[in-house]
Structures are given as structure tokens and as C-alpha cells.
């Protein structure tokens, strides 16, 4: 069965981009436009990995990460942001991987493949 990735980003264009690229790469994609929405989607089940933007209005990525790691300990989370300096801050160490946003999604897709390949 295809693995399902939850993409959480407040930027509409990026959600569209991720959805198309990741589906093309062979995954199923669910979208969430905010931190709050992302938790509801995870509750609905069937998510294998969360791709999470850090900087969002309302509940930000770090907060979502905390909730996820509390309630769904084994659900992998990949953090995604414009800022390389977040890497060592704000408890982002709890995430499974960290990717700096780029219009070239090669690195991101490789990271996702590595993590999803390892599981199960």
C-alpha cells in the first residue's frame, strides 16, 4: 500500500507544489493549512509521515511537533523551513529529519524515501 504523507504548510502554492511532486514520486498526500488542522488530520488516522513547516501563524511547527511526539510517538516528522539556524534550537532535535526549503525538491524527496523505507 502507498504511504501517506501529511503536508503542513500555510503557503497555498507550496501545498500545491508538494502535493503534485510527492504524488508523482509515488506517495499519497493529505494537506493541512495550519498546525491545528494538522492535528485533526492525524487523529483521523492513516498518516505515515508528517512534513511540517516551522513558521506558521497560530500553532507553529515546533508546537505541532511536541504534540505529535507526545501522542503518536512513532510517527516520523520532517521539519521544513527557510531558516537553517532553527536546526539547533527550539527542541527541533525531536524531529526525525530537518530540511531547508528549496524550490528543488530532490533533497526533500530523498529524505522522505530514506525515512519511509526504514519503517516497517
Amino acid at each position, binding site marked *: 500500500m502507498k504511504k501517506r504523507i501529511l503536508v503542513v504548510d500555510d503557503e497555498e502554492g507550496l501545498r500545491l507544489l508538494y502535493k503534485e511532486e510527492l504524488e508523482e514520486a509515488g506517495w499519497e498526500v493529505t494537506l493541512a493549512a495550519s498546525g491545528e488542522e494538522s492535528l485533526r488530520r492525524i487523529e483521523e488516522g492513516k498518516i505515515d509521515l508528517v512534513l511540517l513547516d516551522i513558521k506558521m501563524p497560530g500553532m507553529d511547527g515546533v508546537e505541532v511537533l511536541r504534540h505529535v511526539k507526545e501522542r503518536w510517538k512513532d510517527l516520523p516528522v520532517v521539519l521544513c523551513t527557510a*531558516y537553517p539556524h532553527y*536546526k539547533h534550537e527550539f527542541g527541533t532535535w525531536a524531529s526525525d529529519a530537518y530540511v531547508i526549503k528549496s524550490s528543488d525538491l530532490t533533497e526533500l524527496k530523498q529524505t522522505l524515501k530514506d525515512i519511509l523505507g526504514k519503517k516497517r
Partner: protein
Amino acid sequence: MNLSAIIEELGELANDGAPLTNRLQRACALLLETAPFDQCAIYLWDSVNRAFVLNASVGTGSAAIETYGEDEGLPGRVKASGKGLAASKKDLSGTAIDGLIDAGMRGFSYALTLALRDSSALYGVIYLKAVKKTRRNAARDSALTTAAALIVSIIRGEEINARHRRKSAELAELQARLINSEKVMALADMASNIVHEIKNPLLSIGGLANRLKKHVPQDAPGRLYLDQITHETVRLEKLIGGIIRCLHESALELQSDDMNDIVSESIELFREDAMRRGVNIVKKFTDNRLPVRADREQMKIAFDNLIANALQSMENSGTLTVSTCLDNDSIVVKVADSGGGIDPRYENYIFNPFFTTKKFGTGLGLPIANAIVMRHKGVIEVDNNIGVGVTFTVKLCSEGIECGLRA
């Protein structure tokens, strides 16, 4: 005017707020009233240039000489002799005075010089000249000596004032800088927000344009526009990445490392690029371990930028020489190219953010490299060999040693 009145007026000059030259000018005029003298000049000692420089002169006759070297003329003699007051007469021949030639005595036949000094220093010389030969007068001599002391106090007061003014100017500047740094911080904050607001939409523009490319064949109309769009977004992305790196100094993740390894890793990234350019990479590494405390990822970024620049300066063929060595307690890494060097007109600007001579450069490569090396308490030096190439030298302290590259 009698002598005591003159002394009193000189005393008042010490508290006058006028510029020093004006006050010395006035002092000269007062001294001329004492006596048979026709010209008064005051020279100040310039310890940097080691010369007496004319500051004020009043009177008739040929103009006073502008400067006297340390051992020239009567002022020079005052310094050498250490005497307070000295009288000199023209020789019988009428050209030399006391056996030395002083062009300032043309047309005069008698001179009195007074040292302007106190216990700590020589400040200058008062040079009084008379056309007619005159006799010494003890009362006048002692009044002139007092006058000289008063003029010394005028000059010293001025020095203290100048120092005081300098201090207040420094303070004002410091304050301005502080205000400025607050402004800079507010600006950096704003810039960081703007950059974030720009980055996300830019990524979707670039990413979606990339996707569109898959649907638009190479020879389709409009493909050219699409290529241009993706090209420009990549450039903007690079620029924004650089700005983010400049704005956010993430904490250094220092660990013990070997500089040879770090530099090696940087070089490996560029093998392919070098090959494409027909550039030969020469590694001259020391066999010694180069122990350093560094943030490996950041330090690599610094060398990536230096190596990228070196390669970009060599279009087809050339040699990139990267060498490492230990020099006493400092680690020295040199990145040298044979790309012809930096145009001397631009040499002073290459470390300025956004300075670039490249069509697709961001101008942030060197400022970032510099900031990273600086934060590791190291230095970057540039040796620009015009027509040959450039050598960038990075110096860092060995682990655990304060080698004093930076204060």
C-alpha cells in the same frame, strides 16, 4: 603700555575662548609693544614632523619663515641649547647670526628667542627680531620670561581643551553608533520578516514553474520564458539564502576537529566543477594534524565560498592550489587561483555585502566567509597578484591556544 599691563593682558588671554592662533597673534602684538622689536613670531613644536611650525606672526620686515627643522636656525638652537632666553646679534659680515645662517634674519640685526617650555616639554619658541642693534635690558628680559610662561599656559590650556573636545566627540560618536546599532537591529528584524515573506512564495513560483516545464516541450513557444523564470527564481533563492545566513548568526556548534579534514571535504564538492573548467586542483596539505575547535558545517561554508570564487575566476584551464600548514600556534589555509586577480579598483569592496562583478553573483560569498572565520576568532587575508591570481589566506588558532589573531 607698560610691562605689567602687558603681562596682565597676556594672563587674560589664557581664559579667552578664541582659537589658539588668534590668541597667539594677540600675544605677539602685545610683545611688540614692549620694546625695540619690529617683528614677533611664535613657532610651535610639531613632535610628529620634528619641526618648528609658524603659528602666529606680527610686525614689519621680511616675512617670517614658515618652518624650521629640528636643528635649523635660531629656533633649532633654542631646542639644542635648552636655554630659556637667548640674545643674538648679526655678525659683522651681516649674513650669519651667531655663526649660523637663518634666512628669517634677512633685514634684521638683533634677535631674542624665548623657549616655550615647562618642566615636561618644549612647546615652541617666541622669536623677536629688531632691525637696529639693541642692548639687553634685565627688566625687559625678566618680563619677557614671565610672558613666555604665560604663553605656555595658553598653549597647554588649549591642548587640554582639545583633548576634552576630542573626548566629547568620541562620546558623541559612540552614542551615535549605539543608536545606530539599535536601528540596525530593528532593520535586521524587519529584513528577516520580509525575507521570510518573500521566500515561501518564491519557492512556489520556482517549484511550480519547474513542474510546468515538464508539460512544456523544449521547442514549444513560451518555453523560453519558463526557463527564464526558473533561472531567476534560483538566483533569488540563492540571494535570500545568503541574506538569511547573514542575518541569523546561529550559535556555533564547536567541536574538536582537524582542519585538513574540513578543507578536504570542501574541495571534494568542487571536483566536478573544476573538471568542467579544465582546472587542476593541487592539494598541498601538511601531514600534521591541525587541531581546531570549529563548527564544521559553517567552516565548510566559508571554504566553499573561497573555492567557488577561485574556480569562477578561471574559465578554461588554470590551477587551484589549496595548502595547509601549522605556523607556530596558528593554522594557515591558503586558497590560491590562477584566475588573473582582482581589478585593483574593486579590491577594497570585495568583502562588502552585495558587492559582485558577476552576472549571477549575490555578493554575499565573501562577507559570509569572513563572518564565519571571524566568529571562530580567525582572520582572512587577501593577496591580490594582478595578472596572476588571488590567494586567500585563512588563519585560525590551534585548539586550546589563544594565539592572538584577534584582540
